[in-house]
């Protein structure tokens, strides 16, 4: 039943992240910075190189899912209401994917266990 819950590192069915998974993880990280998210910070959070994150953020801004603000210290990003709507739908959909795709469930289960020791 329980699909993986680690969006920034894995796709909905446990494999590589799809573009949708990537956009969702970027938006989730952007949301945490309350409108003051800089591209370098977002790249560390999403686990992606800065140039790729910048391209994705530009696309998210064009689609109205994120908003860019140019200030003295560079450009910062925020999630929009439409971006939040996207995230809510994305997580619900992942829940259905976990329910309907038993292979993703099995893969999710094998990833269980204690979190890896960071040391």
């Amino acid at each position: 039943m329980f699909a993986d819950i680690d969006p920034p590192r894995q796709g909905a069915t446990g494999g590589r992240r799809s573009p949708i998974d990537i956009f969702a993880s970027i938006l989730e990280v952007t949301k945490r910075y309350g409108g003051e998210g800089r591209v370098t910070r977002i790249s560390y959070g999403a686990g992606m190189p800065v140039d790729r994150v910048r391209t994705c953020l530009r696309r998210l801004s064009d689609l109205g899912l994120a908003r860019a603000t140019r200030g003295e210290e560079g450009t910062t990003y925020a999630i929009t209401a439409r971006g939040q709507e996207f995230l809510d739908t994305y997580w619900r959909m992942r829940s259905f994917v976990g329910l309907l795709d038993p292979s993703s469930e099995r893969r999710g289960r094998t990833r269980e266990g204690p979190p890896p020791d960071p040391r």
Partner: protein
Amino acid sequence: MSDVTVPRGGRIRAGTIPGDLVVERGATVDAEGPAGVNVSGNAEFRGNAVVNGPFQCARLALRDGSVRVSGNLAVGGDIEGRKSKLDVAGNLVARHVDVDRELTVRGTARGSAFEVGGFFHGGSGVEADSVQVGATFDALGKTRVGRVSVGGRANLDACELGELDVGGGALLSEGVVGGLINLGGGGKGGSLRAGGRLRVGGDLEFEEIAVGGTVDLAGNASGDRLEVGGSVRVQGFLRLQDQIRAGGSVSVSAELAARSVEIGGSLEARRAELREKAEVGGRVITEAGLRASSIELGRHAIARGALIADRVEIGGRSNAEGIFAGIAIVGSHCRVGRIVADEVEVGSGSEVGQVQYVRTLKLGRKVSMAQPAVKVERRPAPPP
């Protein structure tokens, strides 16, 4: 005041430095004694560096590198790490900690605020007013934080939090959260207590959840026990080993399975199967019926969908579609569509559409029936 600079790849042995310290890339700072290195001014590390022993300074800046401190790290003011990692083998104390890439504290981390762009690993406890992490927050030991906000995933051992907001998923062994728990992607938990609201965007697995306010789950949920002061809304299925106790209403879009339920308000589910007792104060609305060992509905209850149990008892002035039971006890002034039971008792003033009974039928005064009661050899099977 005399400032000290450790050149690129250099090494110094120091005790007290009565000024600022600048450490260039690849340098090593060794503590002279067990008291460690005490910098009365600010310290700046420009690249990778190692500090062997405890380290103290007024303010700490890290640039473009990874700094490892093998003892405790005590900073009077802030820590600022641009494009840096900080790894502290002992305890960390600072005011505001802002590290871009990764912060690892193997001992206890104490500060007013921790902001980490990538990963924050807490080895044996984190105490702060707020923790904000971009990717993953792992904390062993006790986490006492006012507000935790994580973009990716949170793995917390035991926590006492004011509020928890996780974009991805969360693994919580045991926790008390004063306010809101918001898990965007879903979560796994041991024993969770929240004073406010629990909102989960994905699936949830837990042992025991006690929430003062409301529970809103966008996915499926399974666990042991759920106690909620307010209402529960689950958009998938809800499967519990033990019971649900809710002060308000419980709404489950798919099936509900548990040992028993005790619900002050209404119960809505596509299908509800309980191994023992169902006690509902308000309405019961199911598509495929409510099945339990015993069902007890309060006065003025409304039941849409069949009530199927060994014993069904509905309070006075209630309205039920169909009862399939060993013993059916209907209060006074009720309206019931169909009763199928071994033993039937209907209170005075009630209206019943159809009664099929096996052993006994007791009717109060002025009970009206659309069709005459029928005594049958065996109870007809309830709807599937």
